[in-house]
């Protein structure tokens, strides 16, 4: 038997990235609108897992955002106000 494959957690994976995190979030979520969301697609499709579902509804944290724009496109509730981070902040790609 070969050793089981080492599985990585998303948080470990995204920790290899470099960010200059802005002090203010560049994405603002209107949680009230999330309450009636039929898909909650952001939870599964935000590649860096910025959206999590909790007992109290959707929780968003912008720190791991790679500015791909997916959440804004998949949100059926128009709950997301989406902009790019200010002056040079955010993800800093090196090998992509």
């Amino acid at each position: 038997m070969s050793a089981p494959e080492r599985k990585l957690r998303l948080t470990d994976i995204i920790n290899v990235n470099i960010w200059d995190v802005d002090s203010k979030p560049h994405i603002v979520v209107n949680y009230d609108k999330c309450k009636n969301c039929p898909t909650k697609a952001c939870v599964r499709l935000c590649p860096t897992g910025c959206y999590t579902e909790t007992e109290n509804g959707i929780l968003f944290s912008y720190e791991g955002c790679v500015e791909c724009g997916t959440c804004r496109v998949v949100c059926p509730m128009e709950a997301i106000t989406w902009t790019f981070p200010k002056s040079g902040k955010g993800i800093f790609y090196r090998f992509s």
Partner: protein
Amino acid sequence: MEGMNILDQKFDVAIVGAGPAGLSAAYYLAKKGFKTAVLERGREVGSKSIYGGRIYAAPLKEIYPNFNSIPVHRWVKRERISIMPDYESMISIDYQGKEAISFTAYLTEVVKWMGIQAESAGATIITDVPVTNFYKENNKVSGVVSGEDVLRSDVVIDAEGVNRLVLEASGIVKPLKPELVALGVKEVLKGESKQIEDAFGLSQNEGLAWVFLGAATANTPGGAFLYTNRDSVSLGVVVLLDKAIANVKDHVSQLVESLRTAPALKNYLQNLRISEYSAHLIPEDVWSLRPERLVYDGLLITGDAAGLLLNAGYTYRGVDFAAYSGYLAGKAIEQAHAKGDYSAGSLSSYESMLEESIVIKELKRFRKVHEVMKNGLLFEKYPKIMSGVMKRMFENSDGPSKAWDAINESCKENQYSMLKLLIDGYRMVRSL
């Protein structure tokens, strides 16, 4: 304009975004003596750039005389397409060519190189500045706005990429819809160059482009890819976003994780470590995504923002098409300047040059591929049928089945008629 801070310095051309399109336009225009400014939201040129992993060379050779110094990792001499019915098995087609027409590279490095070309030609690149809108005078685009600051110019090129916040703010396009784009998620896995060459059977500077269909996308229309870089591998998954909303049950990052740990890929990816994780939206239904016009009074739209990206089913072409559209936008500005007229009518030579170019010709040639992609059969039914065929042929302990019988039985098992399969095959070949 009230509350606006209009900067004293005025440019001939202002370009939104220092990506392949914007920088190729800047390079051409600066070389022709235009006072050109490129505004980039990232801290450094290339720091926000991400793509799948391969670039087609020909259009770039036409734009850049010193193409030879572009930071190539490996020239793609080998192509492989694999159908994965599950993560343990795959059916592959291998192609080994003599002439390489595409290369692998980090887009971050290529864009940085393009930035150096543009600056050497005399363009000014201003980083850390996200453009938020166009500045208009008498309804003609006459500069760009970033927050309260206005940078004036005679003409503007929009090269902002797929997330078209500026075009949206100016009312030219509506926000993206899931059916128009795909999501690409990618890991860069690093090792030693020798290690990559040994694992994939490549010689020095030789690269492999590998596409996976089937299980690799959770049977969602799209595809997965692997590109060999100098000392790393780019491994990623692309899923059509509207299909992903319904199909992708786990977190989307799990698709890449599952591919990385797939038994079928185990021998290739040993002892590589993740060095970057990235994601990007990809224009998919490019004809619907395309703005009504690509020229307006004082404005030209290029690259991803114009929807100029080709999904040929087995490969994507975005970077070279973006660069080429920027180059043509530059030429159109040169012609319009000679007439002293930057109206939409005068700039429309950009649209006609684009129409005659490889970009639109290729997009038209592959127009039907998107239709084939959207029909999920290619990603779910066919991989299962093919796997059934192969298993009957190669894993039958009573001796191999005849191919025809194997296809027949596998079709029955998957409740699909052979006639349908043949018609699908014919249609697909016709669309390619």
